[in-house]
């Protein structure tokens, strides 16, 4: 949508924003601000992940938490039980998630629409129950604590929030770049074709199942990374958080809110919504249901009133400003 003659200008603007964001924690030391920023970056990673499968490929997955959970648990359990370095655990988690997503995708992509959504939800429930039942390996519903080891890059353990800030920022940029690259590649066009009309896409020779699996795998890898970052930051994980519907749903909500199937939509959605939701969570801590009601009402309103997401409004605004 952005005119190509402004491309260099836009790139410069983005680079500048990035530099400002990198420098930010060294200027503004407010822990609350950094905490919010870390959350925003984390959620950008998973909403861009959902954007690939739900936005571009049009397959509503309600089971992306599987890969979030696998990413978090793999690193932590290997670290605690076998003393394997967390960073190595991250890589192993990514590999697990990628293989899993290919298997789950191969099976579930025989189904379409609502049936695919429910199948992925069922798969996530299976994982949640497995991790609850196998107490001997996963410590069950009690969850796992990742001990604090002082300042150490090898143990991904820091006293200050700044390193977490930079880590999550780096990976959220990676997520955005991934989606940006996919959207311009052949794969991106294949995915859009599958979303618009799968039968037609197949008839022009697109291997629709393969294309969907690739999108699902990329989505899984990003979720796996987010799970790892989450657990190293919060230093605790349990099956209800890791494999719960909340993680699967919030990525869909943020993406749709911002604009599914666009590079910047999920970023916009996350930047608007996450600080708002966090604020609500803190201020309405006594009225615990309010947060859920807000989530739900927002999702309903967005689908009714602006199914294209907030980015369509921003685009219209930019167009209007330029004319």
């Amino acid at each position, binding site marked *: 949508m952005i005119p190509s003659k402004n491309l260099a200008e836009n790139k410069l603007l983005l680079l500048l924003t990035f530099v400002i964001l990198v420098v930010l924690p060294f200027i503004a030391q407010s822990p609350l601000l950094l905490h919010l920023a870390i959350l925003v970056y984390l959620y950008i990673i998973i909403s861009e992940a959902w954007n690939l499968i739900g936005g571009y490929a*049009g397959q*509503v997955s309600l089971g992306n938490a599987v890969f979030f959970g696998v990413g978090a648990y793999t690193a932590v359990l290997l670290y605690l039980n076998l003393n394997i370095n967390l960073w190595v655990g991250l890589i192993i988690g990514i590999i697990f998630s990628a293989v899993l997503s290919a298997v789950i995708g191969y*099976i579930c992509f*025989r*189904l*379409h*629409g*609502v*049936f695919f*959504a*429910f*199948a992925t*939800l*069922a*798969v996530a*429930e*299976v994982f949640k*129950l*497995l991790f*609850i*039942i196998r107490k001997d390996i996963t410590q069950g519903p009690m969850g796992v604590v990742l001990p604090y080891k002082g300042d150490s890059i090898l143990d991904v353990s820091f006293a200050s929030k700044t390193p977490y800030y930079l880590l999550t920022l780096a990976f959220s940029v990676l997520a955005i770049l991934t989606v940006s690259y996919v959207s311009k590649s052949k794969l991106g066009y294949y995915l859009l074709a599958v979303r618009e009309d799968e039968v037609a896409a197949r008839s022009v020779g697109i291997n629709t199942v393969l294309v969907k699996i690739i999108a699902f795998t990329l989505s899984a890898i990003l979720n796996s990374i987010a799970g790892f970052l989450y657990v190293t930051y919060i230093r605790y994980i349990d099956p209800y958080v890791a494999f719960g*519907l909340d993680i699967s*749903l919030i990525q*869909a909500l943020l993406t*749709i809110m911002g604009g599914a199937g666009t590079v910047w939509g999920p970023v916009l959605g996350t930047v608007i919504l996450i600080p708002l939701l966090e604020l609500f969570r803190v201020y309405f801590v006594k*009225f*615990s*249901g*309010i*947060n*859920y*009601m*807000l*989530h*739900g*009402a*927002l*999702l*309903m309103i967005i*689908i*009714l009133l602006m*199914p294209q997401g907030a980015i369509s409004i921003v685009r219209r605004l930019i167009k209007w400003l330029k004319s």
Partner: protein
Amino acid sequence: MDGFLIQILLRGVLVGGMYALLSVGLTLIFGVLEIPHFAYGDVMMLAMYTCYWLQVFTGASLFLSIIIVFPLYLALGFILQKFVVNKIMDKPELSKMLFMVGFSLFLQGLALFVWTADTRFVKSELQNIYVDIGGGKISLTYIVNFVMAMLFFAGFYLWLQKTFMGKAIRASAQNKDLALVTGINIHKIFLVSFGIATVMSAVGAVLFAPIYYVGPFVGLELTLKSFMIVVLGGLGSIEGALLGGLIIGVVEALSSYLLSSEVKDLSALIIFLLVLLFKPKGLLGKEVRE
């Protein structure tokens, strides 16, 4: 077969009958309105809380609760169809689903706000009366509630088969355009189908409540269970819901006996996934759906 196994199987069948009534409304909503009603279980959760409140504040018996819940949830079904579901009838399928996911979250929040996260229990007058069967005892609640559930199920089935409205609903489920051509008022069909489906699930939830628990997040479990049952039996098939309910009931009972009670939900999910993969039309499914 030892007596204990017979008791387990019987318990599975009794619970399965209640599952059938719980989930049969979803097949109607899916078949006629073509809405992936993700908040289906959350409306049931409200019915369970209604029953809980009736017990706490008025001491009403479970059967009096049903008499109160019936008109209440018929009205709620009509209201929901007219003011919530009707807004999304012309949206694409996945938007409909996400909208209903939003509605589900909203109801969860509402329940969390009104009733807090505490787990509540609905009592039944019969739960301490046990009946001797074969090798063990079984609470009378199971038996009486199963019979009630089957009576409602049969009534619903007969209503769909025999009355003009029931026939019109089945006609609309098969082919909406042809139904319109014959002069059926499709909006009325949508309204009545949703109302009846809601009331069936609400009564099912009230009958199921004494042998389960009530909490703000019980709705998701019930939605997933209902979806599993109707897909297992074949979407759009009333008999399928009965078969699916009985299968899930027996599978859960057997796996908790043979393996452990924790594996109960897992085995039902795995059966569901297997059916979805190898027989996506369900066991009694007729038409092809994509």
